[in-house]
């Protein structure tokens, strides 16, 4: 573990000594819990309709597919007209688009970004690399199946998928959300131990809390 993450005593500028434990101090460690649906179906449907119309993508690009997000968010394809926007921080986003291959190092950051997003949240895997490794199927450094590590609601195939494919994919995602089938966040909470075991199997220098909220 990196030195700056270890528990230690530091002396403040005013001379007072205090204890710092970065992994405990800055994060909430409590595991995620399943969010129950609304008390009656019609209300849940209303919520889901609202959720489907308000997709906020975290501006976090991994792999080559991130290139296609630029034309998508600019006037040429203009995803904003479908109510899809990009946000700069995980706290403000509810859709994580994994836009291509994920190296183990990036997977660590993607997990942290995902866990910091607020419920309800969705994950879309973009391109063959997230599905079966794509052209990096024999790489020593990329994961081959995104759904082993994060709960994927939808895959968009292609290498790389064009902006049109993404727009169609977002439409599918909206339908899934409206139908109440985009329950990735709850699956993550339910199978939390399984996901963590998978993640730790590939991330060998695990130096973060089990859940970084």
């Amino acid at each position, binding site marked *: 573990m990196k030195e700056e993450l270890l528990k230690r005593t530091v002396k403040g500028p005013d001379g007072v000594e205090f204890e710092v434990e970065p992994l405990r101090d800055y994060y909430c460690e409590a595991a995620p819990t399943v969010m129950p649906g609304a008390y009656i179906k019609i209300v849940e449907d209303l919520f889901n309709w609202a959720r489907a119309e308000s997709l906020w993508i975290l501006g976090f690009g991994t792999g080559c597919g991130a290139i296609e997000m630029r034309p998508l968010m600019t006037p040429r394809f203009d995803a904003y007209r479908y109510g899809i926007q990009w946000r700069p921080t995980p706290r403000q986003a509810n859709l994580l688009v994994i836009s291509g291959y994920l190296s183990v190092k990036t997977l660590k950051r993607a997990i942290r970004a995902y866990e910091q997003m607020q419920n309800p949240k969705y994950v879309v895997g973009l391109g063959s690399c997230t599905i079966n490794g794509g052209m990096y199927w024999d790489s020593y450094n990329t994961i081959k*199946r995104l759904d082993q590590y994060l709960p994927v609601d939808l895959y968009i195939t292609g290498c790389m998928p064009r902006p049109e494919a993404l727009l169609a994919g977002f439409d599918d995602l909206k339908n899934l959300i409206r139908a109440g089938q985009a329950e990735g966040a709850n699956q993550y909470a339910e199978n939390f131990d399984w996901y963590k075991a998978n993640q730790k199997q590939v991330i060998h220098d695990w130096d973060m809390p089990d859940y970084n909220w």
Partner: protein
Amino acid sequence: MMRELHERLKCLFPLGELTEQRRGPPNELAFVSLPGAYLRPALLHLRDLEGFTHLVLLTAVDWLEEGQFQLTYLLSNRTQARDIGLRVFLPRDGATMASIHDLWPTAATYQRELREMFGIDFPDSPGVNDDFILEGWIDMPPYRRDFDTKRFAAENFSQRPGRTTTDPEQHMKAKLYPGEN
């Protein structure tokens, strides 16, 4: 031009043959090998007296069968638009090379990369043992040729079943000329 330089340098250092990859002028590119012990004086000479002021790159080749690593120090003379690559061979086992970070500070980054990807040590190079690209790496340095990346991927990552591979030539043959063969 490169030949003249080679002749001049040969009086000073035990150089090998000159391999001219691109004749000029301009845009000459040539490679020459020399024993590791002479690398530093040769680099200094080229940098300070021959105008090769820019270290373009420092990279390695794994000659597995010969049990050697080759280090290539590529230098550029901007004003005369020519590049020269110095090659040094070192034994693969316990590969160690003197650091040149004090000649070009950028060399430290290359050396850190070579340490991680090839396992070549450069003692005293700043931060040479820090992680460079990989984090928590558990196997032998992955750019060594005896590292089996396919096996490593199969053992360490869960694969989605059902993936098939077709030979492009056979596939296109069968698709375009179904009647034949």
